[in-house]
């Protein structure tokens, strides 16, 4: 499982696997928003938590269809299915690798981009914490979506249609935590709920993803 994780990391970083692409997308999105809504600092600081969360969500969506598609094309997915580790562990390792290559950089970059959007000072810490808690759930849900659509020729669009509604609870609690942090209120409740969603997703979705993979490999 660790070997698979390391292999996926290496693939993502070396062979133009889209590492950093999500980050660049995130940056572009944040740059475009002020053009769309106007450069007023008060307005920007009001919408910053939501924009940053939606941006992180869309950026993590970008690389989802690569999770299994490349392995399927060169046949290594079949080998993984017959490997001694269970497919559930494969799904979990894939999700972890996806998180390290997209979720983690996004989390670390978000406070910096928050400065661009005039996010008030206490919000940066909350943004960091809520993204760190929430992005693993995004990667895990995305892995499930990728497992569902791995057999399709052009699954990319369908994948976003399937996955985005599943992101709703994570987004709500994440943006709410940051908004409360900015307003100086107590943000523990949304953070706890978000942690619960992440823990639940990590516990249940590997099984669903493995089931979908087995069906697709039949």
């Amino acid at each position: 499982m660790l070997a698979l994780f390391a292999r996926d990391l290496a693939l993502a970083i070396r062979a133009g696997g889209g590492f950093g692409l999500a980050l660049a997308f995130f940056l572009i999105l944040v740059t475009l928003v002020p053009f769309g809504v106007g450069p007023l600092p008060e307005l920007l600081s009001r919408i910053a938590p939501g924009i940053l969360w939606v941006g992180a969500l869309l950026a993590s969506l970008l690389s989802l269809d690569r999770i299994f598609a490349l392995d399927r094309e060169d046949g290594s997915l079949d080998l993984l299915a017959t490997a001694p580790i269970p497919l559930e562990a494969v799904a979990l390792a894939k999700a972890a690798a996806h998180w390290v290559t997209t979720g983690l950089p996004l989390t670390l970059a978000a406070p910096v981009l928050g400065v661009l959007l005039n996010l008030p000072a206490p919000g940066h810490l909350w943004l960091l914490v809520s993204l760190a808690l929430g992005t693993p759930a995004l990667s895990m849900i995305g892995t499930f979506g990728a497992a569902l659509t791995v057999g399709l020729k052009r699954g990319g669009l369908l994948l976003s249609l399937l996955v985005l509604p599943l992101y709703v609870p994570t987004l709500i609690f994440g943006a709410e935590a940051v908004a409360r942090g900015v307003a100086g209120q107590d943000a523990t409740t949304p953070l706890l709920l978000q942690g619960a969603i992440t823990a639940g997703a990590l516990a249940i979705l590997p099984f669903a993803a493995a089931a979908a993979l087995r069906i697709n490999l039949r």
Partner: protein
Amino acid sequence: MQFWEFANPRVFMGWTARVVPWTFGLAAATLAVGLVWGFFFTPDDFRQGSTVKIIYLHVPSAFMAINAWMMMLVASLIWLIRRHHVSALAAKAAAPVGITMTLIALFTGAIWGQPMWGTWWVWDPRLTSFLILFLFYLGYIALWTAIEDPDTAADLTSVLCLVGSVFALLSRYAVLFWNQGLHQGASLSLDAEENISDVFWVPLVVSITGFVLLFVALVLYRTRTEIGARRLYALTLRERMA
């Protein structure tokens, strides 16, 4: 005869051929009674005037939109556990009916909301969770149409339906956390202190019954069509082999 034998495709085609016309007839009759009674023979509400009458479309369709998903969930479970093909096809057949019910509920709500709330749409928890339910239906139907092999499609959509149900429930309660509502609370519950007046309640229950019957009739009819399509598919495959 065991319960599961009704799900044998041949038996299913046999009894549904007799039941479907009756269900359609009964649904039409109940709907006619409920809607005509509701639209023409109930008093206007003292505050909402005659706009209250859209309730006879809005509440039943919203009720069926949720229950159609529940039925798809049960049918998906039966397919995953017992591998009854009819069950998978019934889930497939129910999805477009369910999405239509969701749309009816959203549109009638908007039409009522414009004069009463002064807006077509607000980001109220109930409205938002219905919009999310609509998206779930959309994804489910899209996945069905995207996959060619019928058994794979049935399997994958069933898994999606199970996971989607969990997340739909999560979203439903997450949006409660996110925004306060404008939508009125439940006023039909059997155990509630304060319900709507019987003058409105009785025709409403008749309408809901009509919508349930309509749903059952449509799903049975569509399932028959799906079975027919599947037979045709098998026949063409066999012909191509020969």
